[in-house]
């Protein structure tokens, strides 16, 4: 049983997804989906323990040996990302029942859980597999489910957002497919570890460069790296609240994992960071993303949209870490991957509570919220403070490591810009605090009350984790340090 963990990780939600359709009642489906998610979480915990104790696990599908058959290879990097994805998906799904019952019609609720599990399975598959073509297939499984999930939004603009994302996403995925084709032409293999061995021999050819360019642009589209981020704000603001929380906490993290996997494991640091101006490109685009997206966020009226822009900014920080390319910088990126999932998961769940009570998430809905929904608003404030990077929250930990990494390379200006970027976050978080605590409610007659416990508990679980891991940083710091070390060690 334990030897089959890598495939169980993916197959459990994949099989559970269509099974949802046999259960007729929405609450039954929810329980079933939650059970599937939690078992996937248990599997990923076991996997991380195994990998941490005994090194990478290689699992060959159907017993076909590695370069020919499909291999699932779990090392510290993907075990860590698997844990983040399954952990966050479980918490968000736990909150889903209350919010989905309010926001979606009866017959669509069952479809929602099916799509959720499909998307979840796709994301886990991308992370678990060691085969580049398999990455493409899982990428499309998760993307197709995502488009449909976004289209479930109540506003008709959700349809348009889903269509735009479908076009962008398909172009991105096809770019990755072209890149994989080039790699296969040059090396005759699709296995990531095998590719890493064979690529150095042909790395000077234009075909490999083209492959790298196609894959890089394709992943950046999925990652919503500035300036390829246009699909994200619409998709996040019009999707059902739970879908936004799910996507913000998992989908971009998986895209970032792909970026790391391809630039570092498959192509190798020397090829991707040294022989190409990728370092400048990643740091530059990341920083521009931080500043432009944060500045745009300050002017947003819809708070869901504001946090969507803030996500683009946070992705910028992670990409800067990849660009610096040292062990500390990668550790900062991996830490921020985890921390940002906790922050945005918590924040968007809190917003889901607000939408549940008030029906919207616009800035005027926040007036007097400090009194009307003290717990939800406190969650938003703590999440926001963590987003800024104040000490004792997780946001501080990852910013600290990122600045330390910049200092190590003596990039003082970069460290300064990272701090300045955080100040912009203060500007947009402060607007919420001001509206919630210093303004009277816009409409006194509006029915107000705390968000239901079904939403509030998962929100505070994530927000509490923001504080807990901000103080007791042992687990994430140790795992990410080992993962970053392993990544760069394995590449040399």
């Amino acid at each position, binding site marked *: 049983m334990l030897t089959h963990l890598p495939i169980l990780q993916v197959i459990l939600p994949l099989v559970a997804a269509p099974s949802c359709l046999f259960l007729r009642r929405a609450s039954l489906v929810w329980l079933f989906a939650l059970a599937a998610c939690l078992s996937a979480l248990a599997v990923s915990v076991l996997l991380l323990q195994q990998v941490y104790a005994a090194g990478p696990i290689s699992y060959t599908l159907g017993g076909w040996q590695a370069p020919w058959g499909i291999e699932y290879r779990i090392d510290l990097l993907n075990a860590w990302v698997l844990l983040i994805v399954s952990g966050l998906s479980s918490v968000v799904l736990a909150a889903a029942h209350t919010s989905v019952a309010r926001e979606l019609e009866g017959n669509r609720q069952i479809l929602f859980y099916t799509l959720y599990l499909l998307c979840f399975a796709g994301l886990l598959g991308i992370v678990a597999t060691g085969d580049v*073509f398999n990455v493409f*297939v899982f990428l499309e499984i998760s993307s197709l489910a995502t488009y449909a999930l976004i289209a479930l939004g109540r506003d008709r603009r959700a349809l348009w957002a*889903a269509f735009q994302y479908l076009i962008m996403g398909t*172009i991105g995925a096809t770019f990755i*497919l072209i890149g994989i084709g080039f790699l*296969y032409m040059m090396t005759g293999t699709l296995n990531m570890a095998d590719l890493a061995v064979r690529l150095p021999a042909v790395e000077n050819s234009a075909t490999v460069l083209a492959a790298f360019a196609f894959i890089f642009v394709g992943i950046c589209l999925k990652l919503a790296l500035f300036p390829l981020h246009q699909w994200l704000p619409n998709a996040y603001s019009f999707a059902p609240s739970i879908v936004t929380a799910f996507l913000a906490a998992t989908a971009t993290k998986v895209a970032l994992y792909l970026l790391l996997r391809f630039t570092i494991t498959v192509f190798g640091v020397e090829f991707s960071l040294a022989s190409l101006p990728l370092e400048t490109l990643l740091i530059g685009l990341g920083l521009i993303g931080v500043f432009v997206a944060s500045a745009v966020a300050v002017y947003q009226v819809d708070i869901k949209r504001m946090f969507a822009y803030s996500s683009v900014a946070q992705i910028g920080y992670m990409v800067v870490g990849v660009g610096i390319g040292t062990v500390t910088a990668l550790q900062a990126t991996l830490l921020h991957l985890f921390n940002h999932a906790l922050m945005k998961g918590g924040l968007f769940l809190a917003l889901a509570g607000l939408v549940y009570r008030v029906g919207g998430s616009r800035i005027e809905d926040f007036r007097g919220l400090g009194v009307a929904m003290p717990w939800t608003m406190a969650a938003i404030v703590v999440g926001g403070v963590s987003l800024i990077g104040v000490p004792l929250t997780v946001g501080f930990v990852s910013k600290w490591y990122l600045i330390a990494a910049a200092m190590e390379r003596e990039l003082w200006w970069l460290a300064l810009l990272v701090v300045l970027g955080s100040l912009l976050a203060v500007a947009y978080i402060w607007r919420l605090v001001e509206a919630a605590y210093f303004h009277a409610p816009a409409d006194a007659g509006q029915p107000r009350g705390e968000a239901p416990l079904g939403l509030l508990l998962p929100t505070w679980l994530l927000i509490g984790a923001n504080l807990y891991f901000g103080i007791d940083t042992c687990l994430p710091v140790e795992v990410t340090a080992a993962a970053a070390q392993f990544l760069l060690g394995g590449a040399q």
Partner: protein
Amino acid sequence: MLLASLYNYWVVIALMMIGLYMVIAQGNLIKKIIGLNIFQTSVFIFYISAGKVDGGSAPILSEGESLYSNPLPHVLILTAIVVGIATTALALALVIRIQRAYGSVEEGDIQALAHERTEGSEQ
């Protein structure tokens, strides 16, 4: 000579550019989807071309044959075609719902309507 012998790749590039151009330049959503399909198809042809070995026969073990084409890219593309069909089906389904919600399948109309709503509700 080299250019002529690699004509299949030129076809791939031409189709790829036509498809991508259609996706960007066409305002009609159905035409955008057609463009996306052409774009994807060009990649299918690219893979299949890469798998062909000059003078190689179909990869079925038979007497008197020692040279076979590489079947792996073909198998990969079977999967990619399925993915492409799923994408097209989903895109068409979305267009039907967009047509019902907005009364149009023209990008310009939809964007004007969506924008109007944003402006109107922000006051």
